[in-house]
């Protein structure tokens, strides 16, 4: 096996991990803070890419394209939120409905094509994989680290504000939140919007990085996002107590995920089997806290009743 080949692939994996890390931070907001499993992200990831690609190709400024992707992603989160809070549909199903609908919308955005190429020679892009091994300020790894840091700082600030605290309370205990005068329905909407906005933003960066937007680029995104959240918690859960560090752990989790993928591919795994491997690994990690609880219950003689 050619080690050089692996080393050559690592910077690309790191950049991909950083982009998916932004997406995973979005998943963290719903899954961990709001306590909602939101499957909208599989759709809104592709939406972000589609919007950015089409806008950039029509001559739009790259920053503006990213901003529009963020806003459209928020709209997708709003739809899921309204399905859930206003129409009373269970959260998981609400997300699946939006995700399904978004597939058609994404095709419409891309003019009926499943794949749209954004040539980095023709357009100015924020990140591109062709610069991933260059030692310049245009290296996507450098740009993405700055981007991630800015995002984490902004979220750290937001979740420390009165509004952000009320969002955390909504996820922690809805009855308590309402008793303290918090509009929990509105907060669920807000959290879903923020999360999907970030996911679409990540999709917009991914489309630029890869040089194309694809209607299927979000397939299984939720699982990758969860993987990043869980890997981050497994490695840093005990040390990273501060909220900002927890978000950093999510981003690192996504990088680790892509580095590991790169290694298993290098070891000879068929790329087609990747999603199966990911699903298995994530399901095992999701089971760990449950098993741990059961074991602890056995030892003290008190069974946990959430089985």
């Amino acid at each position, binding site marked *: 096996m050619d080690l050089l080949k692996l080393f050559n692939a690592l910077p690309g994996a790191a950049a991909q991990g950083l982009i998916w890390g932004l997406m995973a931070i979005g998943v963290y907001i719903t899954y961990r803070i709001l306590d909602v499993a939101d499957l909208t992200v599989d759709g809104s990831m592709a939406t972000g890419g589609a919007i950015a690609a089409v806008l950039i190709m029509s001559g739009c400024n790259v920053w503006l394209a990213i901003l529009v992707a963020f806003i459209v992603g928020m709209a997708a989160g709003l739809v899921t939120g309204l399905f859930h809070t206003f129409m009373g549909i269970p959260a998981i199903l609400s997300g699946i409905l939006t995700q399904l609908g978004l597939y058609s919308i994404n095709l419409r955005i891309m003019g009926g094509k499943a794949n749209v190429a954004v040539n980095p020679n023709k357009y100015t892009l924020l990140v591109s994989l062709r610069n991933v091994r260059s030692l310049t300020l245009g290296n996507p790894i450098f740009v993405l680290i700055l981007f991630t840091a800015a995002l984490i700082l902004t979220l750290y600030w*937001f979740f*420390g*504000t*009165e*509004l*952000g*605290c*009320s969002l*955390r*309370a909504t996820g*922690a*205990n809805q*009855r*308590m*939140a*309402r*008793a*303290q*005068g*918090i*509009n*929990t329905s509105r907060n669920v909407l807000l959290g879903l919007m923020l999360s999907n906005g970030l996911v679409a933003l990540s999709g917009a960066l991914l489309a630029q990085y890869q040089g194309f937007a694809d209607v299927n680029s979000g397939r299984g995104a939720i699982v990758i996002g969860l993987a990043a959240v869980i890997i981050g918690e497994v490695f840093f859960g005990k040390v990273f107590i501060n909220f900002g560090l927890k978000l950093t752990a999510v981003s690192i989790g996504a990088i680790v995920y892509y580095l590991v993928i790169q290694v298993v591919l290098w070891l000879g795994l068929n790329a087609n089997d990747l999603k199966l491997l990911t699903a298995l690994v994530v399901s095992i990690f999701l089971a760990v806290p449950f098993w741990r609880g059961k074991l602890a219950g056995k030892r003290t003689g008190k069974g946990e009743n959430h089985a």
Partner: protein
Amino acid sequence: MLKISHIAKTFNPGTITEKKALLDVDLHLNEGDFVTVIGGNGAGKSTMLNAVAGVFPVDRGTIEIGGVNVTNLPEYKRAAYLGRVFQDPMTGTAATMNIEENMALALRRGRPRGLRWGITNLERQMYREQLHTLGLGLEDRMASKVGLLSGGQRQALTLLMATLRTPKLLLLDEHTAALDPKTAAKVLEITEKIVSEQHLTAMMVTHNMKDAIAIGNRLIMMNEGRIVVDVSGEQKQKLTRADLMGLFEKAAGKELDGDRLLLS
């Protein structure tokens, strides 16, 4: 301070699980009233409290708190007028947030929540002093997650949070029922102290007849969705358990049957 006029509530109407929880409840509390609410299982005590809190809309009647008609206000808006402590110690606090964050949430009850900091250093000082009055040592654990506290500590904290912004009405829904007797007595002692110090109007549901008689200036007893006994003033002060059971039998036309009641 509280005016409940002819409210009624039926859960799951027209189905096999239909439950007429409140038939026709009429209650007027004066400012500073501390009412204990007692009654058998399914009498409607908690339903009445939840109707006031806005957990569900009522089918009929109106509810006014401090002169404001809140009948059509959602739960989170009514919270501006209410302090609430629940039976389950898990319900009143956010377990994954720390003590000071929980208090900061309570301090902002009824206020718009914007992009100012969710907690300030000035507040922390005030929280420390407030926690100190509980005598549970919580003032030294302000950065601890509430999930680490015992049931009694959580109820005491919830009580403090419910009264951090003086509520027009304090609703206590069997808030000592899940605690061991010693802790229950301590939480009850804190309750009485806070209510008298802040001159609160309060309504306390309890299964403990002794507590219902000993605490507060007024006692109401519910049966099958109605208030059947209402004693206050001197009569309440002299009230004995036998009196209460006699009053109940006269009003309800049957013997008091709450097993949980008689045991306590």
